[in-house]
């Protein structure tokens, strides 16, 4: 039960601790030679035209959005998969409409060209 998860938490904390050490320690160990250019962005040895955080294509939003929706659907499959053995045909049938709607959505996207990346 809940206490099963304590070791996981410990692992997470230790792993994070290692990360912190690995990031912090070399800052003490390594040499320091600072100059102005070192702290400027690298862009092939040229000064960038503008700040990088500017504008990006909407395509990336669509990827994340599609992913989110499908992620939910995958999550819904998990409890279903868990009970498939017990409920058998009923579970299978219950999933059919869900699955069909999912596929319809998928096909719609496809038709709309949301899956074409060029």
């Amino acid at each position: 039960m809940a206490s099963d998860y304590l070791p996981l938490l410990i692992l997470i904390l230790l792993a994070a601790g290692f990360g912190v050490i690995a990031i912090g320690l070399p800052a003490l160990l390594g040499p320091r030679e600072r100059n102005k250019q070192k702290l400027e962005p690298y862009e092939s040895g040229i000064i960038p035209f503008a700040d990088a955080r500017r504008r990006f294509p909407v395509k990336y939003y669509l990827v994340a959005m599609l992913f989110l929706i499908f992620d939910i659907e995958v999550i819904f499959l998990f409890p279903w998969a868990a009970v498939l053995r017990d409920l058998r045909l009923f579970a299978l049938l219950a999933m059919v409409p869900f699955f069909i709607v999912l596929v319809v959505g998928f096909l719609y996207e496809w038709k709309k060209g949301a899956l074409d990346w060029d």
Partner: protein
Amino acid sequence: MDWLQLLVFPAIRALILIFVLLTGFAYLTWYERKLLARFQVRYGPNRAGKFGLLQPAADAVKAFFKEEIIPNHVDKPVYLLAPALALVPALIIWAVIPIAKGTPAIADVGIGFLWILAVAGIESYGIILAGWSSNNNYSLLGALRSSAQMVSYELPLGLFLVSILILAGSFSLVELVEGFRPWWEWIWLWLAFPFFFICILAETNRSPFDLPETENELVAGFQTEYGGMKFALFFIAEYVNMISTSAIMATLFFGGWKGPFADQYIWLGPIYLLIKVVILLFLFIWVRASIGRPRYDQLMKFCWQFMLPLSLVYVSVSAVLAVFLK
């Protein structure tokens, strides 16, 4: 001694796991460099120590004693957080993998499969934050690309996991390995392996899907502004991920720690697992030596227009098989 049971033993176990993984990482880099060299008819590292066995140590020493900077144009907290965020998931995904009979690496929880999916889900944070905080055109573009790639391939990956879950009937990886499987199930399972492997390649950003680091158009992608140990952390994350995912694949598809006599002699379990992992790692490197990389849009297209439908079909068929044949 409740607290001993609850806190200290798991902590020791966790420390050992982290240590083993980091050593594994070090020798994986050696393994890869050597193997790649042999694929390319050369020797590879062989001067630091015998057969270059101390090469990873040299790299580590160098990285530790390299200057650390935080450039002015970055978002400092996020810039520092990103490498750690990349590394942690790679280490903790191991927790639920069984390493011997009845023994998970850390804990056998009721949601083993979901743990894998969840940890895979947060893996992309390190990259996306690194790219954003670096405030560098190459980094940002690289980060967007790679995180889009990673989340996309998570879907077929999740669906394949569901299918395996359907067949196994248990959320616990420990039970999955120990459970009995009829032969047709193995065959059906192995059919999925190449596709699962492709998803894993994309998830771990390995060649041929190493677009985020594509040195070609984006210099070093999201890592461009990282140097020294912080860069090394991304490196570690990538390689530990390779080990972790190999272990997962070994567990899901090839019976994990199982092997002759592993039931009687518990200590044989980890050895079998190691052998399987090494073989799978060979596959990773072999692929890297042989196959060119696709373009970003082709990669995404492949995921959404081929892998996803395929995995949907695979889930449905698995469900039908499970209902009617078991």
